[in-house]
């Protein structure tokens, strides 16, 4: 589904990502850990094609196509989607209106999902205007549900979300990523950024990576890596990072 090779990314003059390799197969969901400022959001935005992030070298392939230089909206049309960490407000545009524009599903399905997310009252509200942190996350989930992409990136879908809603969002994401289907029937792929790990209790993830200072310092079994981070913080990752730097 997605394959990244030798990716180096700059913002302005600052080098943020270094030699990233990442391979996510069809039906797989990966999780991305890493301390604040490690470059997690940068990686996601680069995959999306945000022109603010300058690709210095390397390539991104999606569904077998080289999308390294493809404009953002074409990537979206090709099936890449995102649920943002902190989405901007679009004053004057109703959420309902935006959903109608981006949707690839019937309106009745969206209404049903809005109901499940306890978000029906927000359809008439302006997109993200005055939304609380947790409300903005639910708005993102609803939009991504409407858009229904094949590869979905979730940038901290759980941060600022209360306990009940973390379970709700986790369960919905799991469903969106085909995890309730038999492994061979799974078509969707995902990449999830989380600090908390709690959301993973409601999801099935296949592989985890730790991004440290712009480098993938470690990849492996999600539970193992999470337990390590919980026990030792990112201390162990520093060691791996230093090994990889050289």
């Amino acid at each position, binding site marked *: 589904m997605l394959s990244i090779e030798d990716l180096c990314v700059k913002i302005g003059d600052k080098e943020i990502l270094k030699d990233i390799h990442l391979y996510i197969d069809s039906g797989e969901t990966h999780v991305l850990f890493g301390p604040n400022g490690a470059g997690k959001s940068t990686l996601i935005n680069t995959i*999306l*094609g*945000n022109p*603010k992030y300058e690709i210095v070298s390397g390539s991104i392939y999606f569904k077998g196509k080289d999308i390294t230089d493809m*404009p*953002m*909206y074409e*990537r*979206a*049309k090709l099936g890449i*989607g*995102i649920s*943002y960490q902190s*989405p*901007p*407000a*679009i*004053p*004057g*545009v109703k959420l309902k209106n*935006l959903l109608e*524009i*981006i949707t690839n599903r019937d309106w009745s399905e969206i209404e049903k999902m809005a109901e499940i997310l306890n978000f029906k009252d927000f359809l008439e509200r*302006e997109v993200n205007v005055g939304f609380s942190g947790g409300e903005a996350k639910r708005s993102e989930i609803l*939009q991504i549900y409407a*858009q229904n992409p094949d590869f979905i990136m979730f940038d901290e879908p759980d941060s600022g979300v209360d306990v009940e809603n973390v379970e709700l969002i986790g369960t919905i994401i799991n469903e969106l990523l085909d995890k309730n289907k038999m492994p061979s029937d799974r078509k969707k792929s995902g990449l999830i950024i989380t600090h908390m790990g709690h959301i993973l209790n409601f999801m099935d993830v296949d592989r985890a990576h730790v991004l440290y200072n712009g480098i993938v310092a470690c990849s492996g079994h999600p539970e193992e890596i999470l337990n390590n981070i919980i026990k030792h913080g990112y201390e162990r990752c520093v060691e791996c990072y230093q090994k990889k730097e050289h």
Partner: protein
Amino acid sequence: MLSKERALKIKEIAEKYRNVPAPYGEDINLEEYKIEKGGISVDSLMELDEGYKSKLESIGIDIEEKTSAGSYLQINNKAVYSKTDSKIEMMPISEALKKYNLDDYLWNLVEIKDKYTARAALELTEGFFIRVPKGVKETIPLQTCLLIGEESSSQNVHNIIIVEEGAELNVITGCATSPHVKSGLHIGVSEFYVKKDAKLTYTMIHDWGENTHVRPRTGVYIEENGVFISNYVVMTEVKSIQSYPTAYCVGDNSKVTFQTVAYGKGNSKMDLGSRVVLSGKNSSADMISRTIVVDNAEIIARGHLVGESENVKGHLECRGLILSDNAHLHAVPELEAKRTNLDLTHEAAVGKIAENQLMYLMSRGLTEDEAVSLIIKGFLNVDVSGLPPKLAKSVEQIMEMTLDAS
């Protein structure tokens, strides 16, 4: 009629200002615009030719008159049609001057102090006179339209609206230039009186065309507990508009809202202001202006709040988007306080479309053009407050139509 002394006085002042340019806006040579005398008259808006009819519809006028409490149509300087079947009194101002003494209403709120007001005072001028009797609350809107139908001519208008004590009125005014007219001038004097406990909602849609100069001169007087709401929408090209309506909140607890939505394109030059003088205790004002400039257009968005009494409150919100390097946008918010115990605020912001909004929508699959257009629609989508739903809808539609066409 006017009393002899008053008529003389007005004439005397107007003569003095015959050639005096206005402080704002491009100076216009009035000699280039003749004053058309004759014109048609009709018994129903349906009798108008197709060109006029479709023009009227495009500026929100219901030509079948199914959803209006009455209609007034003026082409050039002649009242072509004026009819209402509600309790509201409506007639051409020329008739009102025969019927009533208007000493207290004519040239009372608008000063003659430039060549445009002078022309309206001295030359052939027509307009609507509307009076809502005490206690009459008309919920269905009244529609008035002012059309320029003759080449290189000057339309001179003088309007008066009086909403008597406890009465309510909703007016929509559509202004346009006939499609075949290449150049024109509109001078429009409007004086509105909102008496005690009364309410006037006035919605104006301009569609003048790229070669028409427009010089409105408006004054509004609001008594105790009175409410005045103005919605002004201009979405199409114009050669120049310069206006600076002033509302006087004289009564205690009186309230004013000015909402301006302007989309400047082509070579349009607009100098749009609104001023509120808060002299009644607890009076308040809200001014919202949303402007966009593209191409070579130029907009100056002015706002001026004057607090002259205790506990008055005023807020001025002025936002502008500039979408072309050849365009020009200038926001001039002014606050003036003459008492300690008051609260006047403003926020102004001009700039380009926020990159993060654009990226957000594009990552959902919208092309750049689609994203820009959606952001612009949202930006201009001020809540057209106080309008009956149907009218609000049609204002919204007019905005969408013009945006989609561009």
